[in-house]
C-alpha cells in the first residue's frame, strides 16, 4: 500500500509541476515538452487506479499523435514570444476571476457528491474478472453505440472539411501516375533505328 501511495504522490506531483511549467516556461517548445510530461504522468495515474487501457490510449493518442503536431507547429513558428507576453499581466485579474469561479464550482460539485473514503466504496475501473478493454467495449458498443457512431461521423466530417479547405489540384504540378507508368511499353516510346556510321539520324 505504501509503495502505491508513494508512486501516486510522485506522479501527481510531477503532473502538477509539469502543468505549472507549461504556462511558466519561456520557450514555447519547452512548454509543449512539459505538456507531454504532464500527459505521461496522468497516464501513470490512470494505470495506477487500474484503468490501464485508458492510460495507454492517453499516451498513444495524446502524446504519440496530438502533441507531435503541437510540437510541429510550435517549432515552426517564428514569433517573438517575449513581445507576445508583454501586457500578459493585464489579463491576470480576469483570468484569476474565471479560475476562481471554476474552482468554486468544482468545490460545489465535490461538496454535493459524497466522496467515498474507503477503497471498497470507490468506483472500480473495471468489473471483477473482466479486462479493461472488454469492459470498455461492452459499454461502447451497446449503451453508447449511438454516441460512438456520432463521434465517428463528426470525425469523418472533419476529414472531409480539412481536405476541402486545403487540397488544391495545381495544373502545373506533375504528379506521379503509377498506372500510366506501369502501362507504358517499350514499343510506345522506343524506336530502334539502324544508324550508319558518320551519317546521323
Amino acid at each position, binding site marked *: 500500500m505504501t509503495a502505491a501511495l508513494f508512486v501516486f504522490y510522485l506522479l501527481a506531483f510531477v503532473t502538477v509541476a509539469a502543468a505549472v511549467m507549461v504556462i511558466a516556461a519561456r520557450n514555447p517548445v519547452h512548454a509543449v515538452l512539459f505538456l507531454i510530461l504532464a500527459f505521461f504522468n496522468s497516464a501513470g495515474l490512470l494505470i495506477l487506479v487500474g484503468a490501464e487501457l485508458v492510460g495507454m490510449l492517453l499516451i498513444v493518442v495524446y502524446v504519440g499523435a496530438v502533441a507531435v503536431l503541437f510540437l510541429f507547429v510550435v517549432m515552426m513558428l517564428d514569433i517573438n514570444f517575449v513581445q507576445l507576453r508583454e501586457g500578459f499581466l493585464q489579463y491576470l485579474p480576469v483570468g484569476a476571476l474565471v479560475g476562481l469561479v471554476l474552482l468554486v464550482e468544482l468545490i*460545489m460539485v465535490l461538496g454535493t457528491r459524497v466522496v467515498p473514503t474507503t477503497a471498497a466504496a470507490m468506483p472500480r475501473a473495471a468489473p471483477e474478472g473482466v479486462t479493461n478493454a472488454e469492459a470498455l467495449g461492452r459499454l461502447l458498443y451497446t449503451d453508447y453505440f449511438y454516441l460512438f457512431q*456520432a463521434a465517428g461521423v463528426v470525425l469523418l*466530417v472533419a476529414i472531409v472539411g480539412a481536405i476541402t479547405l486545403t487540397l488544391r489540384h495545381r495544373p502545373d504540378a506533375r504528379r506521379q501516375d503509377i498506372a500510366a507508368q506501369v502501362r507504358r511499353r517499350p514499343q510506345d516510346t522506343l524506336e530502334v533505328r539502324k544508324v550508319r556510321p558518320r551519317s546521323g539520324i
Partner: protein
Amino acid sequence: MTGLVVGPAVPEAFLFLVATLLLGVGAFLPERRAAEVMTPVAVIVLLVTAMLVMAVGPGRAFAFGGHFVHDGFAAFLKVVALVVAAGAVLVAPGWFADERTARFEYPILALFSALGMLMMVSANSLLALYMAVELHSLPLYVMAAIKRDSLRASEAGLKYFVLGALASGLLLYGASLVYGFTGTLMFDELARAHAGAGAAPLPLGALVGLIFLVAGFAFKLAAVPFHMWTPDVYEGAPTPVVAFVAAAPKLAAVGLALRVLHEPFGAFADEWRQVIVLVALGSMILGAFAAIGQTNLKRLMAYSTIGHVGYAFVGLAAGTATGVQGVLVYMAIYAVMTLGTFACILMMRRQGRYVEAIDDLAGLSRTDPLMALALALLMFSLAGIPPLAGFFAKLYVFLAAVEAGLVWLAVVGVLTSVVGAFYYLRIVKLMYFDEPAEAFDRLRRPELQLVAAASAAFVALFLLWPTPLLSAAEAAARVLVGS
C-alpha cells in the same frame, strides 16, 4: 438496456449512408461533373429524408438505448428543417459556378449538417446533444470558409469556427456540470428525478450548468449577448452559405433549446425564464436598432436574424404549450422568409459581379418588377405587417407571452417591431420610389426564381390556409409540454 433499436432513426441512418456513398462517388467522378451532379442529388436526398421522417410517424419512440427520441415535436421540426435546407442547397450552385468555387463537397457537407440538425432535435441525452451540435456546426464552418482564396470568406470561416468552438465549450461545460450534480445524462431520468411534488430540488450547480447550456444555445442562435459573430460571418461568407446558415440550423437549435428547457428542466421554468427573458429583450432591441445604420444587405439580414431570434425567445419565455407552438410557427415562417430573401440577394448580379449593398436595389420595381414584388412581400413579412405570414408569427408569440403574464415583454416586442419595420420598409421605398440604378443581369436561374417566388407566395397566402402549419405546430407543442 438491451438490443439496438434503430427503427425511429431510419431517416437519419438513410441520410448518413447516402451522404457517405455520395462522398465516395464524388471522389471518383471528374471534378466539374461531380460538382454539377451533386446538388440536385442532395436536394432529392433531403426531400426523401423528409418523407421518411413523415413515414416514421408522430408516435413517441426511442432508439439506441434512449439516446435518440423521435416524437411529433421532432418530426415537425425535422420536416421543416429538411425542406428549408433543401431550398438552401438548391440555390447555391449558380453562385458557386460564377465565383469559380464549385466543389462537390459543398452539398455533401450540407447533408452532414442536416444530419446533425436531425440529431439535434432528436437528442435525448446530454452527450447526444453535444455530438449533434458538433456534427451540425462543423460542416457549417467549412462551408463558410469554402471560398478559400477570398480573404473575407476565410476570415468569416475562421471567426465562425473559433467562436463556435467557444460555444461548444460552453455547452459541454454546462452539460458536464448538470451531469456532475445530477449523476445522469438522460433527459427523461433528469425530468423524473426532479419533477413532481416533493421531488428533490435542482442542485445549484446543475442550475449553473443549465445557464451554460442556454448560453451555448444563444451562441448558436446568434442571440444577444452572444451575437457578435453574426454580422461579420453573414457579410464575409459566401451568400449561399449564409442562406443555409441563417435558416435551417436555427430551426434545429431552437428545437434543441425547446426540448432541453421543457423536458428535463420543465419543472424549473421559473428559474430559466429570467435568463430567456433577458436574452429575448437584448436580441429584440439590438436587432431593431443596430440594423438601422447598415448599408450592406447581408449585414442587415444578420441583425434581422438577431431580432427574430429575440422574438422567438419571447415565446420560449412563456414556457407554455401556446408558447412552444408560437415558437415553432415563428421559426418555420422565419426560415422561409429568410431563405426567400437570400434567393433574391443571390439574384443581385450586375455585369457579372455580385453586389450586396442596399443602394443597389434602388428603383428595382422598374427594372425587374417581379423580383421587386417578391422582395417587397418578404420585407413586409419580415417587418410583421398584416396580413402577411410574419405578422401571424409575431402575433402567436406575443399572445403566448401575454397569456403567461409577460405583458411588458410583449409590449417591448411590439415597440421593437415598429422600430425594425423602419429598415425593412426603407428597402421597399428604395425599390419603388427611388431613381433606378443600373439593371441587374438577366440570370437564367429558374431555381432562384422558384425559391423566391415560392417563399413570397407562402408569406402572402399564409392567411388563406394557415391551418396545416398551425395544427401541426400545435400537435408538436402538445408532445413537448403535455397538457
